[in-house]
């Protein structure tokens, strides 16, 4: 099982998630935005400010050369994880529905954050209980998830809402913090599971998130 972390210019959580995967004995590598190859089983789009996040978060990154084959990669059922900026990029790519708007208070928010596991039937959340409360910190200015009524209905019907905020920090519709695609292999979330991977740093609720995906791929 191999994992890759895409590095865009301006990515800044690439090393954090790389280190966590490495510590879990995953064969992980960095994949450069311009010409890198996606020859892995789990692709991570990390947090940060890809291409400065000018214009709109993730709007430029979706055109990155490395992502040219991403639809095909996804259709083959490989796992794709977008954290924070990575989630924003996945919505820009339309691999996930909806969009991320500016936080309701118009400020960047960095804080510990409690999430409720809504769907534990995904590769990433299989080791959590449904309804379990976990702490993954947030750090974003544009994490206010929005989707139209029809889209929301569909998300609910298909069980695509994976995480909800216990105390909505950013105005997201229906407290949505993370969703998965209909195929069940592309997951995006604003909170950072990689920042919840060490007791010394405050919490390790996020380890089970990565372990879930790793075990899933190992079969």
């Amino acid at each position, binding site marked *: 099982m191999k994992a890759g972390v895409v590095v865009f*210019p*301006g990515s*800044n*959580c690439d*090393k*954090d998630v790389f*280190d*966590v995967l490495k510590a879990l004995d995953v064969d992980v590598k960095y994949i450069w935005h311009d010409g890198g190859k996606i020859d892995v089983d789990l692709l991570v789009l990390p*947090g*940060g*400010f890809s*291409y*400065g*996040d*000018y214009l709109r978060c993730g709007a430029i990154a979706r055109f990155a050369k490395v992502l040219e084959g991403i639809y095909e990669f996804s259709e083959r059922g490989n796992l794709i994880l977008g954290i924070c900026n990575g989630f924003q990029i996945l919505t820009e790519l339309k691999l996930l529905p909806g969009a991320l708007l500016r936080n309701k208070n118009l*400020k*960047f*928010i*960095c*804080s510990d954050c409690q999430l409720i596991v809504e769907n534990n039937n995904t590769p990433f959340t299989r080791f959590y209980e449904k309804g379990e409360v976990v702490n993954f*910190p947030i*750090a974003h*200015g544009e994490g206010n998830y929005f989707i139209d009524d029809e889209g929301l209905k569909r998300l609910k019907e298909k069980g695509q809402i994976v995480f909800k905020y216990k105390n909505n920090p950013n105005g997201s519709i229906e407290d949505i913090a993370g969703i998965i695609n209909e195929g069940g292999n592309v997951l995006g979330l604003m909170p*950072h599971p*990689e*920042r919840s*991977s*060490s007791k*010394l*740093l*405050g919490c390790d609720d996020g380890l089970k998130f990565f372990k879930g995906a790793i075990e899933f791929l190992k079969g």
Partner: protein
Amino acid sequence: MLTYKDVGLNKEEYDLIVERLGRIPNDLELSMFGVMWSEHCSYKNSKALLKLFNTKSERVLQGPGENAGVVDIGDGLAIAMKIESHNHPSAFEPYQGAATGVGGILRDVFTMGARPIANLNSIRFGRLELEKTKHLLKGVVKGIGDYGNSVGIPTVGGETVFNECYNDNPLVNAMSVGLLKREDLKKAAAKGVGNPVMLVGHTTGRDGMGGASFASCDLTKESEEKRSAVQVGDPFMEKLLLEACLELIKEGCVVGIQDLGAAGLTSASCETAFRGGSGIKIDVTKVITREKGMNPIEIMISESQERMLVIVEKGKEDRVFEIFNKWGLHASVIGEVTDDGFVSVYEGERLVGQVPAKLLADGAPINLRPFKRPKYMDELMNFDTSKVEKPKDLKETILKLLKSPNIASKKWVYSQYDHQVRNSTVIKPGGDAALVLVDGTDKGIALTVDCNERYCYLNPYEGAKIAVLEAARNIAATGARPIAITDCLNFANPEKEEIYYQFRNSILGITEASRILNTPVISGNVSFYNQSEKMAIHPTPVIGMLGLLEDAKKHTTIDFKDEGDVIILVGETRDEIGGSEYLKVIFGIEAGRVPEAQVEIEKNTIEAVLKCIDENLLKSCHDISNGGFIVTLLECCFKNEMGAKLSINTDLREDRFLFSESQGRFILSCRKDAADKVILNFKRYGVMAEVIGETQRDKVEIELNGNKVLDIEVKEAKKEWEGGLVCFME
């Protein structure tokens, strides 16, 4: 023709330039002298006194004089750090002023070959009731946040202070800390005749023209017209420049490297040449500009951000271009190193200016100015605090203090900063000091910035000592040993004798305390002229301190953890409410004798605290500062909503005991069976420590000499403390 006045010089300085050059300088040369001999670049009014600092210890690898100071932390690793002011720009353009302050200090750190791993800041504003203050606070916090968050360096700590002395002159001091391997340490020196000089990063534009001179005079109405002297920041560009420069250094292409800050290309070229004992030749037509028609003067003094001057080993230019191409950045060879000792500026083939690098970089006349003890000092110091009446309702008084802006929770500020990126922040903002893990080791570094401007105003010498001591206590409270200082000395106009007295005595105070604590000053910055037509700021020597904890797992935080733990008060509480937060907030008085700073005793106190933490005896540790014992105690209670039941005997009146700001004190908690060992540790160091009670759920109850003086719900107190700042800002 420009005159010396146009470039901010005086007659004596101009005459000296003419004498040393042996001719009249042309406009370009005069402009270069104008920025380099400004207070901001030349330190002409501070240099003589800064020499007093103790700057050496067994750990210091690089003291003052470089882009940042560097200390050894063992295992082949070192920490680079520096603090710098961006006060004047932030007074007019709070967002860009603060953002570029962060950008500049980051470059100072990665120029040394270090990867920035943490940022801190000290920001100070006038009365929070003023609309202007809110505007400045919002802009500065957003500027710091947007820049640091985007580059991906956690902002792990700092201080936000309000005092009417900053009504017209807010202070924005940014500190950055980087990690490097000892062998990667780079210097900003131009060496090797014929080595190419490259300008890399952003293009050069007309922004920030003359910023160094702008920062070297009082803020007046006319200053507002000089807004174009404020630079514009691009954090994305900085992130790319950071990665590219570190890659360049790792590849061994770099002979010398210097960031372009104040005075732009002029300072970068003459300083690297001066440090390298060489000369530098520059062709301004090779500089990539973002605007058409820029003349040599504009190119030489532009303060466009996110640029670096790199002296490359000859023959490795192609590798440099490759690396910068990869990161999508500009790089151009703009000149070469010479051995003639001159900075020579060419426009194509034509020589348009030539001055000795040493004269430009180090030739400004150094002044030891006359000083005079300020008149206000005796009057304010002799204020009789015994006349202050005891408040009728202690509980109301405490709640009022808790919600006052200087004591209230600063969450509104630090939640706008990403303090967790890099996944290394063990102690986050809100504690005594931040604690950050050192990659690949068990070590942690503790970081803090501190200064109490009221103490420094009432008694600059004692106040400066206390700033150092408070920083050291904050570091020690985490379990880390204080090892080095970077300081940002913010003062008003040094040409005034009373201001120069404040400056001089602050330096003496810092020197005294840092010598005894063995925390040398390894870098820093002086910011003068923080003065408007109406008022001068209080002397504000901000101390940034670094501490080292060999095993980060042993760290301690400020919060009470469990019910039934023993609470211990360390240090002696004296009748010292002079200059206190209590006097200021409750009575509006800023007067009295400041608390006594006993450095030798505090050194022992710190040793005992470190011993207790090293032996895993403590569950919490919090230093007592603003607001005194009672505010500190409540701060220990908030996070886990854990209260306390205390019984204390004292000779002091109730309010004196609760609000005294006597130095050298801590509140600790520990398991019952550890208490004897803790007390014994302090006894061995000759430091007072006594058990004063136990933690309990939900409530704080205090008896003084057998009389119940306080009974308060933790939740109620916490609500006031949490809402204090928010109610002004939202």
